């Protein structure tokens, strides 16, 4: 209920803020929890995750490997392998419908049509046995009342849009005849073929060469601007976040530890984990001493603290942190942090 109140408060207290949603968000995820069979009791791989994406905006979910970013996105798509994964709590309201309560048939009607996804591994994400054209066109035929030939025509358009050279020829090519970057362009073409309202991109550039990464990211950005698609971009690259995000959600060990507008997160990070992340970004300008790191590693599931999951690595933690999980509380309008001592300068002035 506090959440509801907070959301109503936000636009009133800062009505000029662009990112404050006036209309209901396109996707509103509240308290999403995913459990893997066999995990210790009460330790969810994704725990009480909440965020929202507005029409045409970009939300970046940031966090290190294994923090639950991908599981979250697959849960939204309905692509989690069940078992072992089970959604145990939460709601994900997309345009008025709760994705998590839809039937499998209803979800598959949305998938690839209004919500599309790009995956991390372009090398293995395309079926080796079918041509590129066939694989793009079948997604169009599934959701639109078009003939196979019209779908192929649309597939060709999409290949042009994602700037694939010689698209007519590529339409008949098999995935193994293309490079990783080209395949990722095909994946993007496939995802955007039905003009989705929401695109989930799960580390779309991680598996690519550094030189290709920027191209692909620029391409996604450009197409997103052209089509007005909202995007959830999952990444661990803070440079990418700074460039493309409107909103940011920082995840740690399955929980959102901080969320807010991109400027707020970068200019004034509140959670000790976010502060640590910012400190670990190499920069060209100041090169003084060693690169800051966050000491320790993410605890394994069986050693996960009862309270704040960052406790063992946090320089500010105490007994309170270890035993009671802090809420994701709003510290400033639109800016939330899951820390008992946020804002830190207020509570831990001396220490920081």
């Amino acid at each position: 209920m506090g959440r509801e109140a907070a959301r109503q408060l936000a636009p009133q207290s800062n009505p000029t803020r662009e990112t404050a949603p006036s209309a209901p968000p396109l996707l509103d995820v509240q308290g999403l929890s995913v459990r893997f069979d066999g995990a210790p009791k009460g330790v969810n791989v994704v725990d009480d995750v909440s965020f929202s994406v507005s029409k045409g905006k970009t939300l970046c979910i940031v966090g290190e490997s294994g923090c639950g970013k991908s599981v979250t996105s697959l849960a939204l798509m309905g692509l989690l392998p069940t078992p072992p994964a089970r959604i145990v709590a939460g709601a994900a309201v997309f345009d008025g419908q709760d994705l998590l309560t839809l039937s499998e048939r209803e979800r598959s009607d949305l998938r690839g049509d209004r919500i599309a996804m790009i995956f991390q591994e372009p090398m293995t994400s395309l079926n080796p046995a079918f041509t590129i054209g066939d694989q793009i066109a079948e997604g169009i035929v599934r959701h639109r009342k078009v003939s196979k030939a019209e779908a192929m025509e649309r597939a060709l358009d999409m290949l042009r849009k994602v700037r694939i050279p010689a698209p007519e020829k590529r339409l008949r090519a098999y995935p193994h005849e293309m490079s990783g970057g080209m395949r990722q362009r095909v994946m993007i073409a496939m995802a955007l073929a039905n003009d989705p309202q929401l695109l989930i991109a799960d580390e779309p550039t991680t598996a690519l060469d550094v030189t290709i990464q920027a191209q692909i990211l620029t391409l996604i950005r450009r197409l997103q601007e052209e089509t007005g698609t909202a995007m959830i971009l999952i990444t661990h690259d803070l440079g990418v976040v700074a460039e493309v995000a409107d909103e940011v959600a920082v995840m740690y060990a399955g929980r959102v530890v901080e969320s807010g507008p991109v400027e707020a997160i970068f200019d004034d990070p509140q959670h000790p984990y976010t502060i640590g992340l910012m400190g670990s970004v190499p920069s060209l300008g100041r090169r003084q001493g060693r690169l800051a790191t966050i000491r320790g590693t993410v605890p394994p599931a069986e050693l996960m603290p009862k309270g704040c999951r960052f406790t063992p690595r946090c320089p500010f933690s105490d007994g309170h942190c270890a035993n009671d999980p802090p809420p994701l509380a709003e510290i400033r309008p639109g800016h939330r942090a899951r820390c008992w001592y946020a804002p830190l300068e207020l509570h831990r002035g001396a220490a920081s």
Partner: protein
Amino acid sequence: MLRYIGRRILIAIPTLIIVSIMVFALQKLLPGDPVLTMAGEERDPQVLAYLREKYRLDDPIPVQYFAWIGSALTGNLGISLRTDIPVLELILSKLPVTIELAIMAMIVALAIGIPAGIISAVRKGTAVDYTANVIALSGLSIPNFWLGIMLIMLISVRWKLLPASGYVPPTEDLWLNIKTMLMPAFVLGTGLAASLMRHTRSAMLGVMRSDYIRTARAKGLLSRKVILKHALRNALVPIVTLSTLLFGELLAGAVLTEQIFTIPGFGKLIVDAVFNRDYAVVQGVVLCTAVGFIFMNLLADVLYVLVNPRLRHAA
């Protein structure tokens, strides 16, 4: 593609030569003298010498080999020592029977094995999966001859639904032909269905975990299409190879099954020939079977490339 097939055929040639030498040598190593068998009670040295001369059994073995292989290449596989019928003629009269039985058995095997494999992979860990596995295991463990005898007892003797044995050429009476072949084809087919089912299941399970299956589902495709198009197409790659090789084995004749149902195919021909020490027939049948098997291997290689676009360019 044509170059690939050409290369495969070239590779098959040395295999064929080795096989022919082995077939020939095996024959010479078998105990017993065919001349004595032919001459029967009569042990007149002159008759024996005449027979040896006629079948050139006194020539050095390499000479005999080249004489045999030379005429084999022209289609002359010799004359049955027992019946005086040319071996080629014998083989050609039995081959259609064996091919028909092999095709019908293969249809049974594919029609049972592949759907069962898909279903048990998709329903992995459920009662359906376990049931299918138990049936498959039984299918693998039950000997063909036992199943054949049981079927004859039940279906032919008790219920009188199908003829117990014999063979009617399809040109004579197609319906009766199918009726007589049904039980032997079922007996042979179920044995193969079991291994096809196990292979299909594991291939499907492997493929269903791949990223491109997730992509197909992310496109919103219905599970039926995801399974039957995206998964099956890739799982079929090893299955096609396996089926072709199984078919090659079927062509060698099903000795026990043919005996039980008294079907005059390759299996029966070779068993009779071995018992009669009818060298020429044994050599001819084994050579023919080996060539058939090598050909099916060749076909498996070609099909493997055809169903697997990734290999087409390499080919």
